[in-house]
């Protein structure tokens, strides 16, 4: 392929000395019914060419608003003051036409949701070409050619063909790649990425981060990456800014902040992340309460109501951002930084100490060896297939989606099995099969010793009492029309509890999940996401089940709130001796909460075993890849880690590869000599015991350290 005439500047090309972006004392406020929302209050930062600045904070901390202000994309009702200098040029006060010359040309943006960032009615190639044509005088053909090159650059296979595809024909990861291609199309000097990986699977997340790194190398641009997850930016960012209530509360080099955080909020954020590389039970720090309302902030430190270190002096004045540890590079806004510095522990351990988090004990039943405990849930070679039909009048079956292709596992009393895998691997189908309690298409499901193929409706009803479910989305899992009391009472009404008993038990359940019974007459809409998830858990526990099925219960929550819910789940397990089937795509959460883990790929379990054994010595290449894709909130470790980047997306379950299903994306397979590759193509690997309580399905299984 000959390259088109549009080229990137050489990365070293010095456009201007000094920072690309210099923000000074930025204030942004919006009008609202309850007064002005002061979303950003006096923010200052700068980004140098080629530098990656991470902006971290909970939802509503003003991180997105500040970058939208840079782009000039705020609604006209917003009041902006301060200074935003891009390459020495003031942006505030410029009209839209002026800004449009800079937007997309010199500053570009990558949005969170790649689906809504692309127009569904134009092809991906046309959209990228459009980004070029807006800013440069080139022919349409040249722009189209350039679009293909860019798609190739961001790693889309077969770019010539794929440029003609529409956004809906792309998977989420590919769409985000296309958006990045569009962002770098004009060789910008600044790229703003707003939660670019939040909506993506972990494996894809790793790919996208890698790609952003490549994009930075190619364009030499400064990057601002916005996220709520401190883990994501550890290995990627050079400097970090933590925001709270519209202000920067801590700024500094990435290593400094992770190792020596000097603001309790940063400590809390660090302590709330479950870590993949810690095998013993680590205590997670939940940050209590919620961010303050930005309309009428109290005097004093906005974090004071949630801070474990609060003293009276905190309420008198808002602490300014001051240098700490005698370094001009690291600054924090807290009057007690010296005391934090004086603490013995560092980083996340200090957080545990200061916030006083505790590890929940093991349930009584866990002392009995696993083999002697009762099996609460057993799956034996479960199969679920969907027909693919074609035609309107006469439906012909043209294929079969093998959603679940024979999976076997069991969950015993008092233990947690984590079921992990990318989206589309059949996790949810498996769950629905278990919860439906119908006779499966193939194989067998047994709950508490009762086989689902043999139960009648009466017995099925009885089983439902022992098995309950907590859903992913706390917004959708509670009926908005009924009060919390009715919601928690519903399962008990169904199973014939007396009125008195229900009225006695419901407040108890509220207390059990850490909510106040006075709130029982409220509706779900008045609760926050984390509280709603607690209500969902209370409802699940109403019938004193033995097995709770958890469908990604924390993936929709902010990290700091997630910690509280995980702690609650652990506490309940040890208190009530529950067994959990925990479905998740976040492996660090699974490592934290699960006793055993099963890794699913295309409807099959490819590795299963005791959690430490699987995480510390993964045998299957897919598990290794998954684990290596999870970021660790430790910049030093993170930079040293070698990422296994899986190429491509999950193959269609309607047409899985022959032999080993993973071979099309397998790095191990690719490195094998042809005669051994044959075995992968022809023979489906059986699940074999690799170590005590650890099985993997790979012909050439070998341990590889990835943490």
């Amino acid at each position, binding site marked *: 392929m000959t390259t088109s005439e549009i080229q990137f500047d050489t990365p070293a090309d010095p456009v201007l000395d000094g920072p690309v972006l210099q923000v000074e004392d930025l204030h942004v406020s*919006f009008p*609202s*019914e309850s007064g002005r*929302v002061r979303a950003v209050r006096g923010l200052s930062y700068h980004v140098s060419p080629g530098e990656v600045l991470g902006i971290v904070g909970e*939802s*509503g*901390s003003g991180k*997105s*608003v500040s970058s939208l202000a840079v782009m000039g994309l705020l*609604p006209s009702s917003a009041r902006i003051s301060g200074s935003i200098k891009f390459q020495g040029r003031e942006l505030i006060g410029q009209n839209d036409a002026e800004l449009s010359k800079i937007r997309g040309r010199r500053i570009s943006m990558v949005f969170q949701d790649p689906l809504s960032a692309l127009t569904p009615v134009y092809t991906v190639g046309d959209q990228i070409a459009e980004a070029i044509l807006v800013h440069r005088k080139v022919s349409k053909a040249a722009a189209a050619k350039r679009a293909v090159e860019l798609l190739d650059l961001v790693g889309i296979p077969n770019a010539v063909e794929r440029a003609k595809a529409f956004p809906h024909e792309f998977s989420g990861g590919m769409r985000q790649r296309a958006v990045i291609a569009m962002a770098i199309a004009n060789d910008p000097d600044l790229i703003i990425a707003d939660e670019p990986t*939040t909506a993506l699977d972990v494996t894809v997340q790793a790919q996208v981060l890698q790609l952003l790194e490549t994009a930075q190398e190619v364009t030499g641009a400064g990057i601002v990456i916005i996220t709520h997850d401190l883990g994501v930016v550890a290995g990627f960012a050079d400097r970090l800014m933590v925001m709270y209530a519209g202000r920067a509360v801590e700024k500094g080099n990435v290593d400094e902040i992770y190792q020596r955080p000097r603001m309790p909020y940063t400590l809390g954020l660090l302590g709330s992340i479950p870590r993949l590389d810690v095998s013993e039970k680590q205590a997670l720090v*939940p*940050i*209590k*309460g*919620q*961010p303050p309302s930005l309309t009428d902030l109290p005097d004093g430190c906005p974090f004071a109501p949630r801070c474990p270190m609060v003293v009276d002096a905190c309420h008198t004045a808002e602490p300014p951002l001051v240098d700490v540890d005698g370094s001009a590079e690291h600054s924090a806004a807290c009057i007690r930084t010296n005391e934090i510095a004086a603490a013995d522990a560092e980083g996340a351990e200090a957080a545990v100490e200061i916030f006083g988090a505790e590890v929940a004990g093991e349930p009584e039943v866990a002392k009995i060896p696993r083999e002697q405990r009762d099996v609460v849930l057993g799956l034996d070679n479960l199969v679920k297939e969907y027909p693919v039909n074609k035609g309107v009048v006469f439906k012909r079956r043209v294929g079969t989606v093998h959603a679940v292709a024979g999976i076997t596992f069991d969950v015993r009393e008092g233990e947690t099995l984590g079921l992990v895998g990318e989206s589309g691997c059949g996790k949810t189908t498996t769950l629905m099969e278990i*919860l439906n309690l119908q006779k499966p298409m193939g194989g067998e499901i047994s709950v508490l010793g009762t086989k689902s193929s043999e139960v009648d409706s009466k017995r*099925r*009803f009885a089983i*439902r009492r022992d098995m309950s*479910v907590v*859903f*992913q*989305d*706390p917004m*959708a*899992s*509670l*009926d*908005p*029309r*009924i009060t*919390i009391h*009715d919601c928690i009472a*519903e399962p008990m009404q*169904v*199973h014939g509890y007396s009125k008195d008993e229900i009225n006695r038990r419901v*407040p108890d359940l509220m207390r059990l999940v850490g*909510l*106040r*019974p*006075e*709130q029982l*007459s*409220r*509706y779900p*809409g*008045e*609760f*926050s*996401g*984390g*509280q709603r998830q*607690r209500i969902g858990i209370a409802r699940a526990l109403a*019938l004193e089940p033995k097995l709770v099925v958890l469908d990604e219960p924390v993936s929709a929550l*902010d990290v*700091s*709130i997630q910690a509280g*819910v995980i702690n609650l789940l652990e506490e309940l397990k040890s208190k009530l001796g529950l067994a959990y089937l925990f479905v998740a795509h976040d492996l660090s959460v699974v490592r934290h909460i699960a006793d055993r883990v099963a890794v699913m790929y295309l409807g099959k379990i490819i590795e299963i075993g005791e959690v430490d054994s699987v995480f510390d010595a993964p045998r299957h290449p897919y598990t290794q890849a998954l684990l290596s894709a999870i970021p660790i909130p430790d910049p030093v470790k993170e930079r040293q880690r070698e990422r296994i980047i899986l190429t491509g997306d999950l193959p269609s379950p309607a047409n899985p590869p022959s032999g080993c299903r993973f071979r099309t994306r397998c790095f191990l397979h690719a490195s094998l000599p042809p005669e051994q590759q044959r075995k992968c193509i022809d023979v489906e690997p059986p699940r074999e015991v690799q170590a005590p309580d650890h099985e993997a399905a790979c012909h050439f299984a070998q341990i590889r350290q990835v943490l």
Partner: protein
Amino acid sequence: MTVILNEGDAAGTTGAASGSPVDAAPEPDKAMTRGRLVLIRFMRNKLALVGLVVIVGMYLMAFVGPLLSKWTYDTQDYSAFLEPPYSEHIFGTDKIGTDMFVLTMRGLQKSLIIGLLVALISTTIAAIVGAAAGYFLGAADKALMWVVDLLLVLPSFLIIAILSPWFRGKSWFLLVVMLAAFQWMITARIVRGMTLTLKEREFVKAAKFMGQPARKIIAKHIVPNMASLLIIDATINVGSAVLAETGLSFFGFGVQSPDVSLGTLIGLNAESATTFPWLFLFPAGFLVVFVLAVNWVGDGLRDALDPTSTRVRRKEKKDTKEKAA
């Protein structure tokens, strides 16, 4: 979007729902029942209360009023033809000397009953048929939707007109049934569509997985979540039922003389609207006030039943900004 706005885990803190409309829990330990909550929220809506008072007042007036008057709707005062309102005939008289007050009250009686009953029956049928079709799908759905489509293509006015000789002299309730039978189909289709989406919501699945039987899921989770739609639909139906009855009566198919309804009165006296305004204005005014009051009550009920509806509109604006935050 995986990030939730306004996220905050205020376990054990008050912040979460400060300023919420249901702060005033009388006893801290016992939860308020749903009915009581709805009532409190309804009472807070002044316009709805006014509507309710007007409706109740109209019922009282329509049924008690004629008893207090010395005239009846089928007797005439031969000393007063086309008299404007005065002390003897407070609404005046028509051209054959019938007292307009009793006549209007008689008409109001019929319209009140017909309008409300038709709305109630047709919305109930729509909710049951639509929700059942959407929830069960398969054969039930096919059969029910076939009926809906069939009724939709039948010309209802013609059928009622053809059948009217048959129910002449029989109970007026037959007319109500006929009107209701031709008014529920479009709503049923909308309800079915909404059921299809609601069915996939996790709270419906949660109810299913806890062993709740299908009919109870429909009654407890699906229909209440469409309450706004159904209530609005019912209030619109009151209006259109009264109008449909008016239309039929105008052509002589609905309410038969000497019995009257607001419809026949308006139809008969429309041409006298400018010359003898009291003949037209009283029945028409009552019709307008009645439909308006029903709508106010409908609005109030919807807001009371839907915990988010009043706040939603206000919050929407704020949310878009917070989203940007």
